[in-house]
């Protein structure tokens, strides 16, 4: 599904990600771990084409992101749900509208949007806050809204960047349950996290980064 070949990304003569070779198959759930600044976020950004690699190529579902026409980028992104590390919620829209936006952009009808958004909100346990604005939510609540937005369109690929950084262990567990359920339905998932509890004893692939390099792969 996603193939990284010889990927490097260099910022101001400092490599955020270097010589990465990685193959993620359709329907897999893979963890990416590493210390602060190891390159986890950068690796995910390369997948949803927020950055382009300086060397190497990434192929997603047959499309090479480096040679993709600019006009096609929106359509590639519509197949990828992203839980951003910094949430990227729009503070002038309610929780409902923030999540609905992902569907409106895709041209989904309002009637259907209503159903899907309320389902997503139920999953993350925030149905009662649908009319609140992001800045009136607690950190963990905001994070869960971001997660709801990422999964609301049942994407082919889900990228989750530190999705439980602001969540207590109870909430973290229920989010992981949601991810595994979506994964079971066929969505390919990459989760970047420093929280070892998330993958401990899951039997899933864990990719380790250190200063931008892939230094090993274990099973959680």
């Amino acid at each position, binding site marked *: 599904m996603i193939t990284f070949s010889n990927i490097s990304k260099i910022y101001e003569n400092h490599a955020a990600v270097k010589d990465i070779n990685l193959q993620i198959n359709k329907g897999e759930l893979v963890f990416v771990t590493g210390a602060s600044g190891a390159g986890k976020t950068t690796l995910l950004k390369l997948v949803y084409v927020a950055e382009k690699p300086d060397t190497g190529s990434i192929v997603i579902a047959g499309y090479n992101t480096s040679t993709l026409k*600019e006009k096609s980028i*929106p359509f590639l*992104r519509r197949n990828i749900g992203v839980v951003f590390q910094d949430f*990227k919620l729009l503070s002038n829209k309610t929780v409902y509208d923030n999540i609905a936006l*992902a569907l*409106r*952009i895709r041209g989904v009808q309002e009637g259907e949007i209503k159903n899907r958004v309320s389902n997503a909100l139920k999953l993350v346990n925030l149905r009662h806050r649908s009319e609140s604005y992001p800045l009136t939510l607690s950190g963990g609540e905001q994070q869960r809204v971001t997660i709801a*937005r990422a999964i609301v369109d049942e994407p082919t690929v889900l990228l989750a960047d530190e999705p439980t950084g602001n969540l207590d262990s109870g909430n973290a567990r229920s989010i992981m349950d949601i991810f595994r359920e979506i994964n079971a339905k066929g969505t390919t998932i990459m989760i970047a996290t420093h929280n070892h509890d998330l993958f401990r004893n899951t039997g899933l692939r864990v990719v380790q980064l250190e200063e931008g390099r892939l230094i090993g792969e274990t099973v959680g």
Partner: protein
Amino acid sequence: MMYLLGLAIKSILREKWINLLTSITIGFSLLILSMTIFTVYNIEGVSDKLPEKFTIMVYLKDDLSSDEIIKAQSQVEGKELVKEVLYISKEKAFSELKSNLKGSAFVLEGIEDNPLSPSFEVKIKKELFSVEKVESLIDILQDEPYVEDIDYGRGFLDFVHSFRTAMRAVGIFFTLLIVFAIIFVIYSTVKILFYRRKDEIETYKLLGATAGFIRAPFLIEGGVIGFLGGLFGIAESYAFYYVIVRLGHNIPLIGFMDFPVQFFAVLPVVGLMLGLFGTIFALGRIRF
């Protein structure tokens, strides 16, 4: 589509300060445009009325018979440009001179022999009036055998002509200046709104929005701002007109000025077009 419209309206209300500011600026610019049109229009209007007052005095030879005079009159009346020809006999000219001298008329009392010439007072057709045509008419008349002399306001005619030309040039200059100013103002406003929502737009892109989806609300917003600017322009123009006509009521020249309402009715449409134009410029190409 409904959603994008809603977005635009929300955005206009949210950014009401800057939008108000921009609309008022545009309104101001359009006011200057109005003032320019107003001035040029009135000058054209005034100089269009000139032909009514403009007459050519054709002094005839003293020894013409009445037959010759009648023939000459119908000949002059036959000219394309001529509206009417009034024959003024020697006697009439003398009595007119008397009445012009008013209090000093007694100076004429001793005179028996009328020393004045008969003349034609020639009026020009208003709709055909132009400085060039009038001058060529005079050249032709000059050569007629029955003509002694021709008198007309040459300097005045030249002045009107050059004044009109100058005012037209100033008018076009100001109009162009203002059109550019408005486009620039809308351009920079949209640019500001765009920069201001940079993060928001970034998020839109990352969620898979196309360029059209991002552009639409800005285009609507730019159009609405321009349109509102046009409405402000009308309001300000009326206020300006009101002040001018009210305060200038008892001032000659200003009293009979005219207000070309039909020009100003198109200001909102002008604003709308310029708004869209400025927005397209400001948005430029959207990169992903």
